[in-house]
């Protein structure tokens, strides 16, 4: 669905490349996770998908078509993005906010159609935000706001769904709910790209993982391929062990204390 081919990104007036030769496939029906330390290029990858980071080299293909040749609105019809941060300047209702997801389909000038309204209702139900659809977005808790943002991306209705650090400010239950929703979206056939810090949660939900380090791919493959102590220790430069999640048996990372002998 989304293919990154050897992409290199350098921000204007920056000597360092933010992404260097990164290749990545985001397939339909699966959760593809991108992980890595702070500053490894995860968010730049998302910005490149949005067309907001200049590609110095390489290509991004969406459904086999070079994204560079697509209009922004055509990309928006295919790929819905939940960015890391979003601070709306003025409060609108959750329903109005979710309805903005239909913008690429009806355009700025077009009239509202039955299909658009149905897609909005569907998204509200799917992301479980119906109960507070008429509240304004400045009156939501962190978890409610994140679900509203997912609802907007679902209303956008593309084949691909990108979420950048969707659980940063959420507690365990709300983070799990967000990951469950992403898993469900993937099982329904969409291509999900998940960018996250939370290696252990990612390990339980992702089908494929790509580990970025200083703008390059440090490891890529199945969860077991990437969640290896030697790989992660090198990238994060911190002593750690990889154990088994006691409940489901997926690999789980356990950072160690730096002091010798203190586990």
């Amino acid at each position, binding site marked *: 669905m989304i293919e990154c081919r050897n992409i290199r990104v350098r921000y204007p007036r920056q000597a360092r490349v933010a992404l260097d030769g990164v290749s990545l496939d985001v397939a339909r029906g699966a959760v593809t996770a991108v992980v890595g330390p702070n500053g490894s290029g995860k968010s730049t990858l998302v910005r490149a998908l949005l067309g907001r980071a200049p590609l110095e080299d390489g290509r991004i293909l969406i459904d086999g078509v070079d994204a560079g040749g697509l209009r922004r609105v055509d*990309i928006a019809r295919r790929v819905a993005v939940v960015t890391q941060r979003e601070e*709306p300047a*003025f409060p*609108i*209702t959750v329903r109005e906010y979710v309805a903005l997801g239909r913008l690429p389909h009806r355009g700025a000038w077009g009239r509202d159609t039955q299909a658009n309204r149905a897609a909005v209702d569907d998204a509200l139900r799917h992301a479980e935000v119906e109960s507070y659809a008429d509240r304004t977005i400045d009156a939501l808790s962190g978890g409610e706001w994140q679900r509203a943002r997912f609802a907007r991306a679902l209303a956008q209705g593309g084949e691909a769904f990108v979420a950048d650090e969707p659980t940063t400010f959420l507690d365990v239950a709300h983070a799990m709910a967000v990951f469950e929703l992403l898993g469900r979206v993937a099982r329904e056939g969409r291509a999900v790209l998940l960018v996250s810090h939370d290696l252990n949660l990612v390990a339980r939900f992702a089908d494929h993982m790509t580990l970025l380090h200083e703008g390059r791919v440090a490891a890529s493959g199945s969860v077991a391929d990437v969640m290896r102590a030697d790989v992660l220790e090198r990238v994060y430069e911190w002593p750690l062990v990889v154990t088994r999640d006691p409940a489901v048996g997926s690999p789980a990372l356990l950072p160690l204390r730096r002091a010798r002998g203190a586990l």
Partner: protein
Amino acid sequence: MLAALLVAAVAAVVFGTIHIGVADAWQALVGGGDAVTRFVIRDLRLPRVVLAALLGAGLGISGAALQGVLRNPLAEPYLLGVSGGAAVGAVIAVSAGLAIALVPLAAFAGAVAAVVVALFVAHATRSRGDPRVLVMAGVVVGAFANAAIMLLLANSDANTVRNAVWWMMGSAANATWAQTAWLGAYVAAGGGLLVAMARTLDALALGDDSAAGLGVEVASASRLVYLTASLVAAATVAAAGLVGFVGLVVPHIARRLGASGHRALLLSSALVGATLVIAADLVARVALPPAELPLGAVTAVLGVPFFLATLRRMT
């Protein structure tokens, strides 16, 4: 809101230095009554009320659009150098001794020039329409314009200074139907375009990345909104000088009245703005008869306390 607008408009037609009853005013309006009353109502008060309504509507819409696209609740139409540029144009025209009828044209040209310069400065930084850079560019152009006015006025005679200052304080006193008609055309065209772009504005108000994710060409859409909103503001400045605080205050009143989303916000800002400026112009006319208070000063006196209250609510 419509009702409040109608009440304000009727009051503004009826009250004045010459007292005319509602019934007489209506008679004059439909062509009856004595000639003096008819002249006062149809050629003095009515164009003035319509001009005030258009000023308020234009500044309200312009302010609402700019606050949305700049994602800044303290943004207003004069922020991008519109007021400074217009004032420079007007002061040059006044001190060059141009016919008074040409002053609005000079003001309009000055305002457009200032906006173009501000956009050009922002563009030159390659910030791709970053709202913070645009605000800074506008402020800098405005400061430059103010300095230019000081220099121009420093060696002018008292008459020029008085004319220039009176113009900078804003007034709907010299309203004519012709003036009203072309301001109406600007407000209708610019306001219509902004209302049509309401959904794009909703998306832009979420932030650049989110708007881009929704398929909005952020840089060009932002530029179109800035330019349109500034042109509408420039047209109001050309018609009546600087009427401060309307563009800042009105969108906040409209939001408090429950306008959510830019379509509702732009439309109700037009109504609220029209009502406010009609009321302010009425106060300017009747507060200290037979003298007139400057309209810009009255709106600012109404606007400043509200501005401070909004500031308090934000912190």
